């Protein structure tokens, strides 16, 4: 790079003439004057002189921080530490809130916040709901993280960095500022700036000869292609968002793409499937001779009415003595029925639960599906209590047994609830209590 374009042959105040001596035709204007020093110790007096002369828009550029120079220049202490303190406190409070809220406070039940924003108290290893000592590490780290981010980005923002369009950086000699040279620059924007008198002042500072700093006249707008590229990049960046928004607002008929199986779908035999490995072709294996499955031991001395629904070898027509019919029992029955039975039999017991609904569409392999029995069929209505109890316990046809999943009391509760269901669909006016009956008749 040549520095032959030294402008000192011309008067300092020609504001647009710099272009003439340059090789290219861009119009330039005087942006400031700079003086070069080769030793940091001379800077202090120079800085004081410029400061005393009343300049405000000026600076000293050095390859490394020269201590005390900011005092000579009259730079006031920065408020950066206070900003960082605020950042740190924010981090501290964020940490305290995050830990105590997400691990201790549940707002789900009252639906104050959306599900995915509610906290969830799940204590472990006997720790209290608010385990503050265990949260200290996270709170501390967030405090440091927020402070550090504030420090770095606060510093850059206050320094106005990044700025890539600086006329000084176009100055060939100025490149040495990151090596071994020191520069004092007075900007043309300074109200006291006058090209000639400022140059005279600078010349007396003990540095080199003042040098012109020129900037292109047209505003430093980014080139067209950069703007186009920016718009294009923004558009592309929006694509994922659009896709997500679409996915969230559309109904899918297909199951989600299952990239990682996580053992969700395993190669295995399910109940009622054929398995050629066995001679009888059944995947479900009968009990081995001489063994008894868990819960299958029948104690004949016990209350067989209660445990098996049998009275004198026949299905019991009544509830056992241990079971008291009341609202609690029916509620329990409803609760168990809805959990264990309704998937096939439906909440109303008509045999059209979600499993049935899915399997009735004739998917390959499921053509033989038979709709579950409706609780309201006359055949079911006619069955004794004990018979229904036995069906729940041991299963019937393709219905699996639930004896292992449901306690005896719960099975009786379900029987009671099934009876209530049946009654609900075949009730007559005479079943309605006296006071309400009138109201109904009035309609």
């Amino acid at each position, binding site marked *: 790079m040549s520095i032959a374009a030294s402008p000192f042959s011309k008067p300092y105040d020609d504001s647009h003439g710099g272009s003439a001596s340059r090789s290219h035709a861009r119009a330039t204007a005087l942006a400031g004057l700079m003086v070069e020093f*080769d*030793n*940091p*110790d*001379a800077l*202090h007096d120079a800085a004081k002189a410029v400061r005393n002369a009343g300049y405000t828009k000026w600076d000293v*550029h*050095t*390859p*490394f*921080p*020269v*201590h005390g*120079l*900011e005092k000579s220049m009259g*730079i006031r202490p920065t408020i*950066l*530490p206070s900003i*960082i303190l605020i950042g740190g406190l924010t981090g501290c409070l964020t940490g305290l809130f*995050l*830990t105590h809220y*997400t691990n201790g406070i549940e707002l789900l039940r009252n639906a104050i916040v959306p*599900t*995915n924003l*509610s*906290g*969830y108290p799940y204590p*472990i290893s006997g*720790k209290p709901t608010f385990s503050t000592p*265990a*949260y200290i*590490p*996270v709170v501390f*780290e*967030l405090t*440091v*993280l927020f*402070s*550090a*981010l504030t*420090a*770095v980005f*606060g*510093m*850059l923002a206050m*320094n106005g*960095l*990044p*700025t*890539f*369009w*600086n006329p000084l*950086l176009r100055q060939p000699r*100025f490149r040495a*500022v*990151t*090596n*071994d040279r020191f520069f004092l620059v007075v900007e043309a924007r300074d109200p006291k700036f006058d090209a000639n008198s400022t140059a005279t002042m600078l010349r007396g500072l003990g540095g080199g000869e003042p040098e012109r700093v020129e900037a292109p006249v047209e505003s430093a707008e980014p080139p067209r292609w950069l703007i186009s590229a920016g718009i294009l990049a923004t558009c592309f960046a929006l694509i994922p968002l659009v896709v997500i928004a679409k996915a969230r607002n559309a109904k899918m008929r297909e199951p989600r793409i299952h990239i*990682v199986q*996580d053992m969700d779908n395993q190669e295995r035999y399910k109940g009622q499937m054929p398995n050629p490995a066995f001679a009888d072709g059944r995947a479900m294996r009968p009990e081995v001779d001489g063994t008894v499955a868990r819960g299958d031991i029948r104690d004949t001395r016990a209350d067989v009415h209660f445990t098996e629904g049998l009275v004198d070898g026949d299905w019991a027509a009544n509830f056992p003595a241990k079971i008291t019919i009341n609202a609690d029992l029916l509620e329990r029955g409803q609760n168990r029925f809805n959990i264990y039975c309704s998937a096939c039999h439906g909440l109303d017991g008509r045999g059209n639960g979600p499993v049935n609904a899915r399997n009735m569409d004739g998917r390959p392999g499921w053509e033989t599906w038979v709709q579950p029995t409706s609780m309201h069929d006359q055949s079911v209505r006619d069955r004794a209590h004990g018979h229904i109890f036995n069906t729940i316990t041991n299963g019937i046809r393709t219905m699996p047994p639930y004896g292992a999943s449901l306690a005896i009391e719960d099975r009786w509760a379900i029987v009671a609830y099934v009876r209530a269901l049946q009654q609900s669909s075949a009730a007559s006016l005479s079943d309605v209590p006296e006071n309400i009956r009138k109201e109904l008749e009035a309609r």
Partner: protein
Amino acid sequence: MATIPLMEVDNTWDDPRKRAPLVTGNHDYKSVTDLVADVAERPHPPMAWYALFAVSLGLLGFLGFCIGYLLLTGVGVWGVNQPVAWGFAIINFVFWVGIGHAGTLISAILFLFRQNWRTAINRFAEAMTIFAVVCAGMFPGIHIGRVWLAYWLFPIPNQMAMWPQFRSPLLWDVFAVGTYFTVSLLFWYVGLIPDIATFRDRATNKIKQGIYGFFALGWNGSTRHWHRYERAYLILAALSTPLVLSVHSVVSFDFAVSQLPGWHTTILPPYFVAGAIFSGFGMVLTLAIPARELFGLKEIITLRHLDNMNKIILATGTMVGYAYSMEFFIAWYSGVEVERFTFISRAMGPYAAAYWTMFICNAFVPQIFWFKWARTNIPLMFVVSLLVNLGMWFERYVIVVTSLSSDFLMSSWWPYRATWVDYGMLIGSFGLFFTLFLLFCRFLPIVAIAEVKAVMPRPHSLGHGHGHSHGHGAAHRAEAH
């Protein structure tokens, strides 16, 4: 370029009347800049660089292969099983995180203590920190088994209404290591800005100028900028100091909050921190000794720097030895049978070889640095630094494996054996580390040029009226004249 031959100068004297110079040879600002920039600017790096880079790249590829194999097959390819559920992955994690501590220690703590000799080594110690944390962060990531669910570790609102369990040390690790990596990176980058600007201004082609120019953010050495920059740097140092302590303390909590004898002991946090600094300095020496040879930096990373680092290795090694001894004493003093057994088993049980490797390398070998001839003998200190690295790896091995394999129930005792995948990943992680480090050496300023200039004596060109040295504080004021 410095035209004078690079020589080993003994600047390790003890005379209390005169501070030793931190830059030897007859350097001025320009020659220091030239010396450092030359590492990146010379058209071809030394042959040794190419050789090392090829080996590192090969190991990195092998690491990628091992990880792919692990992910496609499952964690069964490792040697872990009950009761030793934490195998090499956790050992390597703690090992690398430990190494990652020296960088920030040198940057932050020594900065706060006004130890100006840090300026020559802080840059690549910081780089080493970041690369070591990258290696460290990888291991818990793959250790969780189902890597694709790693995002469960972060507090992201989700449709399951599930949050991370903040009472769990695993979560503390996520926050500690995450914060540490972020802050170290920021600290490193903030320090790099002025030096990248130097590279920008020296760049000879447009591409370099563009790239360095972008990362220099338009830095122009303004005093108004320097003023805020130094403030921010000081505060970052003040933040990083407790951060360094916290990170390895949190890592120690992974072990110490359990009830396992040998893990549950209250000295573990400071003991881990001392060990981390120890291993970090071991690695800094391992890297600095060849680097100063290879890149001709003997006048910036002088004998005194090595001497000082050896002293820190001695101090922290002795602290580690203190912690080993205290553990033994308190295990006896506690009177608890299982505590006593655990420590006797460490020293004399099936893993005694690992224990004594650790003890000798960490507590005994550094004691040689009581002697000055040892602290200034370069081949010797290189060997010691390698032994320190070895010993610190074995320390983690001893902690993880001995405590776990001898469970409370004798019937579940089980000897741990690593598989080839375990070893492959350990070696491969060195490949990752050195690949990154060698790239750094080639393309970025490996010495903090601006900071070194600030601790150099002032040039004599302009009279002696202002003849004080105004370095980073007063500690070296006496050296100017």
